[in-house]
């Protein structure tokens, strides 16, 4: 469906980050086929991430992980009315061009896939479709924003079902923001140098007290309590990857994480959502991992 009209401007920063604003307070779910996408929509997801394998399977299978087959993405687009996101490899702008041509609603330049460029991330200003990127700390988040990302998510450690890394990344970002808010104008230059981040963005944070784009959480969220934890730590929405479709009852887990994400400050409501769900995904201790996805990208 095209809507050509000369008085309209598409692909502006307001329009690109605006979609991220609309997702706040919601849950974005990884899905690998149309059936899972429908389960996600029925459970109240605000968007789905279309991919061939959830991160825990990518971790198990090893090898090079790439952009999903366009046929799979189209099948998922046809199945649901929600925004559909898809992943491109870090630096792989040709994969991103393909995803834009397919009309996906958001592109995740993701460390879960095998990086395609060891030195450069994608120039995201060149695209009409908005990008989300992962970050482990404030400097990394601001470098991605400088490259045009309209939404930042914690990297966490995808596919582990272990929330510890996401918590580390969120705490690191918010503690750096607090440091900037307390700094005087002349200290901001050194802070920018230490974070390897553009001074203009550091100055903006000093003024507004928050990241210039929304901050979501990804990586290891497996239970309603995990969602309530990261939202109380300042995340504005959650991505759930393996946590739903690797649990013993995906419908129940999906619905419960949606409820917990809305009522995250109400422990009684989160308790109600957590009751009788069955087994969460098994999970991995991050100290034993052979490969740490969060170390991909810079």
């Amino acid at each position, binding site marked *: 469906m095209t809507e050509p009209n000369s008085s309209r401007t598409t692909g*502006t920063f307001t329009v690109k980050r605006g*979609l991220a*604003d609309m997702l706040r307070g919601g849950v974005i779910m990884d899905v690998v086929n149309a059936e899972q996408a429908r389960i996600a929509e029925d459970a109240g997801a605000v968007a789905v991430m279309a991919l061939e394998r959830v991160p825990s399977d990518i971790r198990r299978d090893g090898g090079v992980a790439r952009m999903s087959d366009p046929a799979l993405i189209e099948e998922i687009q046809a199945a649901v009315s929600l925004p559909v996101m898809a992943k491109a490899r870090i630096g792989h702008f040709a994969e991103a061009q393909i995803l*834009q041509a397919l009309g996906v609603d958001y592109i995740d330049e993701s460390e879960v896939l095998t990086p395609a460029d060891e030195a450069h991330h994608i120039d995201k200003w060149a695209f009409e479709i908005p990008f989300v990127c992962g970050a482990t700390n404030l400097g990394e988040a601001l470098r991605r924003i400088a490259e045009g990302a309209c939404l930042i998510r914690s990297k966490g450690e995808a596919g582990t079902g272990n929330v510890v890394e996401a918590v580390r990344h969120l705490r690191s970002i918010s503690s750096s923001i607090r440091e900037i808010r307390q700094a005087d104008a002349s200290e901001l230059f050194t802070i920018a140098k230490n974070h390897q981040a553009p001074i203009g963005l550091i100055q903006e944070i000093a003024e507004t007290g928050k990241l210039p784009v929304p901050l979501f959480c990804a990586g290891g969220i497996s239970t309603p309590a995990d969602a309530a934890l990261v939202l109380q730590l300042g995340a504005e929405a959650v991505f759930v990857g393996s946590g739903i479709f690797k649990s013993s009852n995906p419908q129940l887990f999906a619905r419960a994480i949606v*409820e917990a994400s809305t009522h995250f400050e109400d422990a009684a409501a989160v308790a109600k959502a957590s009751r009788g769900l069955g087994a969460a995904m098994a999970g991995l201790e991050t100290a034993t991992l052979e490969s740490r996805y969060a170390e991909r990208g810079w």
Partner: protein
Amino acid sequence: MVGLRPVGILALQGDVREHRAVLEAIGHEVVSVKTPLDLEKVSAVVLPGGESTAISLLLKSSGLLGPLRNRIAEGMPTFGTCAGLVLLARSILDGRADQVQLDGIDAVVRRNGFGRQRFSFETSAQGASTLAGETLPAVFIRAPLIESVGDDVEVLATIERDGGNTPVLIRQGSVLAGSFHPELTADRRCHELFSAMVEQGTAQSTL
């Protein structure tokens, strides 16, 4: 600007913060509405942008659906943007069978009627006399399309589309609804119009 009535924002999901900032700047006390108890504290409510399917489910599970529908039917001033418009519309095209309808405004609305995110856009909307005939900046994000409105619905702003004019801001009685996001721009006129409706507590307020 003291003593304005408290306004609730349905805070189940979506861009609650932006609406809150505008309403607070106008001088309203703002209450996040997540439960029926929260709804009892407010004289008016804003339904923000977000995903209407997710908000529909959460309206049911929170117990808000019945009380909210009743308050709207009783004439509580209500302002919906984007997903909020979808929830308020009497008839929804391309929606889900189980989608909630608050039956607040006599309009036929097509979900995502302008297409996917790559067709999301900014433009100028043309205001009617209620808005002094001036233009307003309008941001459309996977926006719903108002296909038609009933005889009792006032069209307050339009954009050009397919050689004609499409309504983008409409009002019926105490319900105001827009397919765009005035809360994402610095222009406060839509919220000021709503604020005037809240303060008069009646249908046909004039600025």
